């Protein structure tokens, strides 16, 4: 977004709460190849000592602070979550952008549970296609197309929508584990494809002139800055060009406290931030404010700044905090015979083989009674030894002692994991607001998350995971552990799941049920645009970054072509 707006001739300042980061320094080999400092002590992640949130499962509980990073890992520092991500770079199924309409058309309105607040994105795949295409070219995405300009081409995902051009780079190679999954799912009549990865399969120079090196499957993607310049990040793919622009300023160590509004509360005037170098509060004025503080903190800043009306689940009014969601993800494990080594440390964050047979729109949910879906994939991203030792030998096995030790070593050497990475819908009593008790280091109320799993999503996860049984057999597994959500099992903030948090300040066609219009512009304060997965009205089976990047370019395009010529609401409210 900053690149787009400097290209449009604007003077752009980024306020970043964390430190500045250059991959050549903070990501350099060999110091970055350090599991303890990286995934375990969480070098690239949010410093909870300064700001956290509170969590509860139910509306009648007291939410308690998220004191240790565990279930999800927001980023901090230049690059943010775009630096520590894995690189799974998907588009979207067209019907996922109109899931409410598509569900009603096929299954009728009664198919939607009463408490599910399902609504459409108010943007179509065709509208977004040029921006998916642009994001892939900036990210140097590796993958295999299925349909380009209406013509079948290559061995890509048969369920993927039409593309205007092929992927910029050929797909990543299959690891041994992924190759086994490909063969087994093919044999069973499913439709395996190479996951689109923002990990460069070849050397690449993007449209900004930023260069990427080929990925060598070192396995240090998620939680790390890529020393090979192979995983796309703002730090590698955008900032080297942007930093040279005289219209661009980056202010690290600047914790924004709130967006300032004029007396009408209809216009933002800038922001107040704490300069963490001298701990003084400073102000900056601006004609146009873009919130890009990550899903959670975009919502937090809107609530702290009084942009829009906070959502109230009791009266079902207000929009800020509404339609918060997460991602269902459960990881199952197959053990292969002891003469087969899976070398799980070999991997790349976005690489792997997936099937969309239980995620694609034509899959009939009617008999199963759920909305949403889940791809299944082997995404061997590089399993490191502390993580492997912590996971041990699987469910029900000893977690320490001699038996544990031999189980754990065998599991590391001879097993592989398969994820069911599925959607999560939105519900009336799942939302974000401000906590009444706990505060951050700046004495502001923490964000409060009210979240748990609901039957629709548990049913979906359980159905899809169950489909792994024949796949495990076809892969010659000697032991299989299927992991699925349980009914009435509360969301557990202690277990890492994923950082794919979404919603809370969603896009839509109606200002009473959405915080943002279809261009990610605040309905209430039209010179504020909010970029993040907070804009998604509900969850997807895919990872959010691809859609998020396309929406950012979509929004930037309309700011450049329409808003800047005549600042004001892009959609009448």
């Amino acid at each position, binding site marked *: 977004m900053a690149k787009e707006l400097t290209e449009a001739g604007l003077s752009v300042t980024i306020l970043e709460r964390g430190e500045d980061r250059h991959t050549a320094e903070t990501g350099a*080999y*060999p110091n970055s*190849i*350090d*599991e*303890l*400092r990286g995934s375990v*002590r969480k070098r690239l992640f949010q*410093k*909870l*000592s300064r700001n956290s949130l509170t*969590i*509860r*499962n139910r509306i009648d*509980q*007291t939410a*308690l*602070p*998220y*004191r*240790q*990073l*565990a279930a999800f890992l927001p980023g901090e520092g230049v690059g943010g979550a775009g630096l520590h991500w894995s690189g799974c770079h998907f588009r979207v199924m067209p019907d996922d952008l109109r899931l409410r309409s598509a569900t009603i058309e096929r299954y009728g309105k009664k198919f939607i549970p009463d408490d599910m607040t399902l609504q459409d994105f108010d943007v179509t795949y065709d509208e977004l296609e040029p921006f998916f295409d642009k994001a892939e070219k900036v990210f140097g995405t590796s993958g295999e197309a299925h349909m380009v300009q209406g013509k079948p081409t290559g061995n890509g995902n048969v369920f993927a929508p039409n593309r205007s051009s092929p992927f910029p780079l050929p797909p990543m*190679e*299959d*690891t*041994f584990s992924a*190759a086994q999954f490909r063969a087994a799912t093919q044999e069973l009549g499913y439709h395996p494809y190479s996951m689109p990865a923002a990990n460069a399969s070849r050397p690449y120079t993007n449209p900004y002139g930023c260069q990427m090196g080929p990925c*060598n*499957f*070192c*396995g240090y993607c998620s939680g790390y800055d890529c*020393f090979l310049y192979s995983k796309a990040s703002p730090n590698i793919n955008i900032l080297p060009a942007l930093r040279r622009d005289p219209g661009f300023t980056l202010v690290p160590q600047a914790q924004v406290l709130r967006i300032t509004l004029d007396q009408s509360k209809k216009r933002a005037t800038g922001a107040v931030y704490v300069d963490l170098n001298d701990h003084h509060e400073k102000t900056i004025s601006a004609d146009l404010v873009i919130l890009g503080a990550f899903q959670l903190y975009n919502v937090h800043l809107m609530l702290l700044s009084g942009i829009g009306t906070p959502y109230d689940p009791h009266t079902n009014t207000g929009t800020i905090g509404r339609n918060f969601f997460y991602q269902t993800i459960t990881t199952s494990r197959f053990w*292969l015979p002891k003469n*087969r*080594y899976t*070398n799980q*440390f*070999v991997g790349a964050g976005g690489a792997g083989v997936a099937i969309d047979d239980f995620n694609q729109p034509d899959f009939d949910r009617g008999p199963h009674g759920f909305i949403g879906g889940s791809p299944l994939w082997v995404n061997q991203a590089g399993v490191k*030894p*502390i993580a492997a*030792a*912590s996971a041990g030998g699987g469910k029900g096995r000893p*977690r*320490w*002692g*001699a038996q544990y*030790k*031999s189980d754990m*070593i065998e599991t*590391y*050497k001879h097993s592989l994991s398969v994820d069911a990475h599925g959607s999560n819908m939105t519900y009336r009593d799942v939302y974000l607001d401000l906590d009444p*008790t*706990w*505060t951050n280091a700046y004495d502001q109320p923490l964000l409060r998350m009210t979240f748990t799993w609901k039957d629709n999503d548990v049913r979906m996860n359980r159905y899809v995971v169950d489909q792994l049984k024949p796949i495990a057999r076809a892969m010659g597994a000697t032991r299989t552990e299927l992991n699925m959500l349980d009914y009435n099992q*509360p*969301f*557990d*903030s*202690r277990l890492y799941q994923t950082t794919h948090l979404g919603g809370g300040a969603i896009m839509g066609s109606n200002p009473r049920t959405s915080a943002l219009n279809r261009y990610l512009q605040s309905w209430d304060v039209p010179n504020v645009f909010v970029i993040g997965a907070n804009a998604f009205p509900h969850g997807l089976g895919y990872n959010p970054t691809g859609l998020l990047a396309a929406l950012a370019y979509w929004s930037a395009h309309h700011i450049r072509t329409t808003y800047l010529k005549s600042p004001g609401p892009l959609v009448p409210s």
Partner: protein
Amino acid sequence: MTHHHATIPSRPSLARRQFIKGATALASAPFWRNTATARTAPPTRSPDLPRFFTSDEFRFIERASECILPHDENGPGAQELGVAHFIDQQMQTPYGHGELWYRKPPFVSGPPELGYQLPYTPRQLYRNGIYSLTQQCLRHYHAPFHQLPQDTQQLVLSHLETGALALEDIPGPTFFEQLRSNTLEGAFSDPIYGGNRDMKGWIMMGFPGARADFMDWINQNGAPYPFGPVSISPSLSMTVRE
């Protein structure tokens, strides 16, 4: 709802505490901020004195971590890997001091799914937890943990793991998981942090350490990767090659 108050543990004698404080100040080289420091001065092989733990606490860590990861035919256990030294060194880092955690009061207990809610830093968890455990071992077995037979040590740890045993206001599982996590970190992190001595933890698991280049080994069709590990520190990798 239970409200806890953060207290600085005061169990060791004053003289001992002052000694610890002095030793901490002397040994304040921030190796965790700059691994280059660790490179020029790799952790010595000789068992140096613990800097945070008292000698009795250190013996507890040695014995308890060995129960979690015992020496056996698969390879070395926690003691041979230097896990207790690793944990002792971690207590000097921002992590040990609880600086990575949100630590604002009030501290209110709640359902386990909502996560850790005690006021204690890792240093305080160990100090308070080991003190309480020692008292209970003395009461039941008339000896501190480290002097008990290994099967009794295992029994005590399993009581902590299941929650049958609590350490005053520290639930057994909280203490057990802290110990288990730190033990596995010490056994399998880069040897620059003082554990995983001679990379024997990695050798045991078949992990090649900081090689970080598998371009030619993406799919070995089921064969094992052929090379042993290297450390971030060239000098620690050299030790193994010799």
